[in-house]
């Protein structure tokens, strides 16, 4: 932070308004989120008390245990693999759908509603359908393709199968954000371009993509974070006895296993801290990239 020598009255006025506007959000975040988070940081240095015994401070023991635990590393790799499928596919498909639906198409609002449906479906229904689709004996995929693939219990394929469900369930969400981004692009740009004789595809690359880049960056950024903290897909579709689980379980899944299932909160907290540090690193890199690729008015 550079220290400013002296502020003009105008700048001071602006700063006061700025602080007033961010105050409710920041106070809320501090109480609701940062206080619990700091608690977790503290816990990660503790052996948390079992059977009603209090916490004992153990320094970095949880961290050194986590760093030498291949399960944690594997789970980080699994998480990254999942993100590599979900983020690009989810963003590109959603962007195309949003652009199509922004054009002059009949039944736009029907399509928009349909694409949004997976978001409102009961998670139990989603899991049931996908389990049925992936079923080795009776599943639709194996029946259509005349194959006998164990989609979700073969460690080599399971991560892709899970990624596909991830893409499928996030498209509607990304699409809504893209549509609201498209709505904020002034129509004159397209009018001017079509007078110049630009076709649909060149309009897409010369106008839509650059002008939509703030929205795209926002979606990519939040989806990367979302994908790296993925958790419920894994337990919804995969049973505990599934042989592919070690190759699919995400870091948050492992954290959950230790914190909730086994009651080892200190170790769980250390795992979360490692994950958060990793996500922060990714975010910093992305924030750097923002200046190069994102176009602001």
């Amino acid at each position, binding site marked *: 932070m550079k220290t*400013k020598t002296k502020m003009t009255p105008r700048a001071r006025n602006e700063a006061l308004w700025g602080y007033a506007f961010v105050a409710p959000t920041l106070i*809320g975040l501090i109480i609701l989120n940062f206080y619990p*988070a700091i608690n977790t940081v503290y816990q990660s240095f503790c052996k948390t008390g079992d059977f009603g015994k209090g916490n004992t401070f153990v320094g970095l023991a949880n961290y050194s245990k986590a760093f030498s635990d291949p399960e944690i590393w594997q789970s980080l790799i699994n998480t990254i693999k999942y993100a590599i499928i979900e983020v690009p596919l989810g963003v590109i498909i959603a962007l195309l759908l949003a652009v199509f639906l922004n054009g002059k198409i009949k039944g736009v609002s029907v399509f928009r509603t349909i*694409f949004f449906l997976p978001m409102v479906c*009961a998670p139990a*229904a989603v899991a049931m359908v996908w389990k049925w689709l992936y079923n080795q004996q009776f*599943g639709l995929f194996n029946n259509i393709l005349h194959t006998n693939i164990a989609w979700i219990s073969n460690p080599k394929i399971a991560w892709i199968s899970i990624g596909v469900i991830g893409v499928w369930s996030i498209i509607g969400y990304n699409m809504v954000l893209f549509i609201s981004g498209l709505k904020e692009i002034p129509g004159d740009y397209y009018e001017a371009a079509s007078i110049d004789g630009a076709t649909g595809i060149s309009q897409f690359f010369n106008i839509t993509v650059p002008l939509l880049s703030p929205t795209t960056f926002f979606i990519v950024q*939040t989806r990367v974070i979302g994908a790296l903290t993925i958790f419920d897909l894994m337990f919804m579709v995969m049973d505990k006895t599934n042989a592919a689980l070690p190759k699919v379980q995400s870091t948050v899944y492992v954290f959950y296993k230790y914190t909730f299932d086994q009651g080892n909160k200190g170790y769980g907290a250390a795992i*979360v801290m490692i994950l958060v540090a990793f996500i922060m690193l990714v*975010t910093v890199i992305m924030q750097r990239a923002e200046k190069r690729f994102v176009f602001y008015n």
Partner: protein
Amino acid sequence: MESASSKDMIRRIIVYIILIIMAFIMLVPFAWMILTALKTNQEAISVDPFYIFPSNGWHWETFGEVWQSYNFVLLYKNTLLMIFFRVVCACLTATMAGYAFGRLEFPGKKFLFSLVLIQMMIPSTIFIIPQYLMVSSLGWLNTTAGLVFPGIVTAFGTYLLKTGYQGLPKDLEEAAGIDGCNIGMKFLMIMMPLTRSSMVSLGIFTALFAFKDLMWPMIVCSSVQTTTLAAGLAKAQGQYGSNYPQMMAAAVLAVVPMIVIYVIFQKQFVEGIATSGGKL
């Protein structure tokens, strides 16, 4: 000229085909929910693909049974109240903070915004127990206030609206600045209406996540009288005596208001822009 229009025609047809295929893929689980609701439990747990449609008659009465036994009216009321307050609070706080982060300059802005980003990086499961303790010490267990509590502010929404405000043309504010109206008025009368479509999508997502949230209402509202749809259904169902057709019928009934809300607000999306664009 003619070849251009026939080319255009082909492009349109391709777009329609893609849209229809995607729509079909998206519809599958929803159709599945409805079809399962109409089956007997025996049929429902079979994974054989030849039982896509109910073979022992269509059991529409399941919907009626579920409506009666789950006390849906009460659950709808609680859920809508919670969703409403969460949406109002989230939009209000996020639009203010988003404006400040996106359009105003003040010392420490970068640092404060990084706090917003960091919040999104932390898996939300770690917040639950401390937040539960806060609600219980405020005496808000089994109340709407307790249900709304964690949704008063939103990091995601703040970020979303910051992006929205940043995307607006620079000269807008300068034009208003000349009139000498203060920042608060500028925000209220000029800037905020322009980000209406971002606000609507924030509202839709807030409503959706509030609606889907199972864990928080389960913990905070242990009594069925005050709980929400998601938790109420889960509570009434039990984990083991699973009756799939009933479960799915309940899920369908629960989802209908969400679809209605979405359809209403998606109209707002489009109209909101049309009106504010015309006004300025």
